[in-house]
């Protein structure tokens, strides 16, 4: 059952992102974020003090310190005081919180930003700390090993094979050739096995990056943007944590979120999927019923750049930009969190009829 149409029309009216890079040693998180904030505000002409609500997504575990987001807030320039909140999640969920805030009518515009620097540590090790702290985390199963379990389950079920996975990776990086922000572009070798059956080419690059979006409601969106990307529906769902109780070849949470967001009511022409591993695109394509007529990850997706905590928000921004540029009329954007696609968010974005 699709959710009722939102009470207010809310759109993405601006998007900015960093060039995602393997390392950014010379920059603090705030320094990495600042140009993105300036750019997204400049696109609309809004100033910090004119934005109705601000929400961010990040994680202390990448920063290696508690309350790391407080420093980023100083970069926003919260003076005079602003209405502001933070989710310890990918920025796509910060956008969701901002969307609900605009729905209440308490604000007409929102600034959403997210950032993550994976380079200072081993992100594979860091992400193990997401797992059940008593039974699983002490074993340190890393994110690539868990994704490999999922990939092997897909191969065993006959949903894909290694050449097909290589084709996903190759297509993504070929698309990324046209994306100046991407980290890996053009021909990338399949490489040796990272964790069988996943090769290095099936895995996302490790990198640093930030992204920001501005949302606006109703007429305000039209004032700020020539062709706003209207959020027709957005929903997110979570699954059980234990991998043993999930069918790793399927993503019921993605399917349910897509239903609630209204994805299946009419075909989409574009899909930006947050699939850090080539095998996860296979799962998502099935759950979202995407056929070959849909342009999937024209940006290159997370296989071309995967700034942890920002990569989901980047998907929404990339989909919105396609609409704003007139390259898409109805696009789907997806974000994920947790091991093996545990939590998934789906948004449907549309441009005004032409």
């Amino acid at each position, binding site marked *: 059952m699709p959710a009722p149409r939102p009470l207010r029309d809310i759109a993405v009216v601006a998007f900015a992102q960093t060039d995602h890079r393997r390392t950014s040693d010379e920059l603090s998180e705030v320094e990495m974020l600042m140009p993105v904030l300036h750019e997204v505000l400049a696109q609309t002409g809004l100033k910090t003090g004119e934005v109705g609500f601000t929400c961010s997504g990040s994680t*202390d575990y990448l920063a290696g310190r*508690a309350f790391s987001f407080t420093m980023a807030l*100083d970069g926003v320039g919260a003076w005079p005081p602003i209405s502001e*909140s933070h989710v310890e999640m990918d920025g796509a969920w910060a956008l969701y919180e901002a969307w609900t805030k605009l729905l209440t009518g308490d604000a007409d515009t929102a600034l959403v930003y997210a950032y993550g620097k994976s380079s200072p540590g081993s992100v594979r090790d860091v992400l193990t700390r997401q*797992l059940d702290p008593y039974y699983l985390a002490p074993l340190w199963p890393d994110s690539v090993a868990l994704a490999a379990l999922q990939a092997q389950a897909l191969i065993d079920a006959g949903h894909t094979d290694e050449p097909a996975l290589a084709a996903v990776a190759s297509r993504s990086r070929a698309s990324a050739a046209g994306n100046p922000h991407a980290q890996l572009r053009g021909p990338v070798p399949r490489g040796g096995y990272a964790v069988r059956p996943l090769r290095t080419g099936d895995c996302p690059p490790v990198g640093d990056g930030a992204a920001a979006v501005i949302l606006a409601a109703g007429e305000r969106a039209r004032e700020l943007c020539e062709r706003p990307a209207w959020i027709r529906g957005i929903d*997110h769902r*979570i699954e059980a*944590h234990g991998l043993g109780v999930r069918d790793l070849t399927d993503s019921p949470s993605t399917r349910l979120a897509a239903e609630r967001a209204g994805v299946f009511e009419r075909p989409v022409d574009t899909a930006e999927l947050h699939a850090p591993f080539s095998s996860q695109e296979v799962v998502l394509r099935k759950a979202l019923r995407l056929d070959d007529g849909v342009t999937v990850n024209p940006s290159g997706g997370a296989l071309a750049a995967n700034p942890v905590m920002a990569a989901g928000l980047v998907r929404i921004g990339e989909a919105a930009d396609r609409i704003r540029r007139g390259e898409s009329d109805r696009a789907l954007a997806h974000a994920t969190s947790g091991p093996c696609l545990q939590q998934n968010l789906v948004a449907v974005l549309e441009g005004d009829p032409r």
Partner: protein
Amino acid sequence: MSKEPVAVVGIGQTKHVAARRDVSIAGLVREAARRALDDAELSWADIDAVVIGKAPDFFEGVMMPELYLADALGAVGKPMLRVHTAGSVGGSTALVAANLVAGRVHGTVLTLAYEKQSESNAMWGLSLPIPFQQPLLAGAGGFFAPHVRAYMRRSGAPDGVGSLVAYKDRRNALKNPYAHLHEHDITLEKVQASPMLWDPIRYSETCPSSDGACAMVLTDRAGAARSPRPAAWMHGGAMRSEPTLFAGKDFVSPQAGKDCAADVYRQAGVADPRRDIDAVEMYVPFSWYEPMWLENLGFAAEGEGWKLTESGVTELDGDLPVNMSGGVLSTNPIGASGMIRFAEAALQVRGQAGEHQVDGARRVLGHAYGGGSQFFSMWLVGAEPPAS
């Protein structure tokens, strides 16, 4: 376009203690959630979405614990959001959940906040060395003590006011079965004789470290009509943030706190908080913050807050009771502390606060703050539905 009214129909919390070694983190949060559902006479299936909050992940050593806790909170197949706004997070989490109802995204939402500080070492979690940044190395008390001293100088408050607050809150806690500290032999003299930790803050004027969780069931008008017990209605709610450190910051009475309160009062139609609000649950981790926040929240003129405290106005039987539950001074599972303030405010207007109930409490303010006094979240709840 008008917002959907938001009602609190279920409240649950754990008995807060220094260490809950008998339960996992999942067990702890489920206990509070189960109690909130029981209070609302609802089942897990009645919940449309879950919004969870806690203070830094380093406090328990679990990154983004909502992933692990999805099963324990009945969230599988549902939307689950995780909020983190430092010490104000418990309040912010409730407000994010309230927005889901107010914006008509969901009908009934479970919101929960927790901290299981015994799983790790909070001081360590706050003290990770970061290159190129000035470490604080003073603990929270060391950060706030100079601001208390500044307040005393500015207002001319006598030295003993802080002890009065601690003595009051610890006595109030004796009437709250969920409070962490139950100091049955508490006396004012004992508070005054406790060791000086960060001058002027004494040991007995500081909050404990607690394990605990607090949960609420928020619902729309239709949900409230089905509620077996009285609902608490949200009349206003707001968050405000300002930078941590800058030359123009007033640490004694931050502008973000004033603006946040003003926004809540505007929404709720409160013209004079001292007259229009019956009681307050405010975030007082160090005793002197009661008079300071009384001024910041508009209950007293600048420099006059300590006089309300000294004259007994904020006692449980006073004209403006503050921290009827015993407050943060008696119970401090950090991530949950803000939500406990919000929940205790709701308990009061529902008439469900038991021994620490204030007679005739119709409109009560819940208040939370965090970081270096830079994040604020507040709500005002009433016994009657909002007028508009």
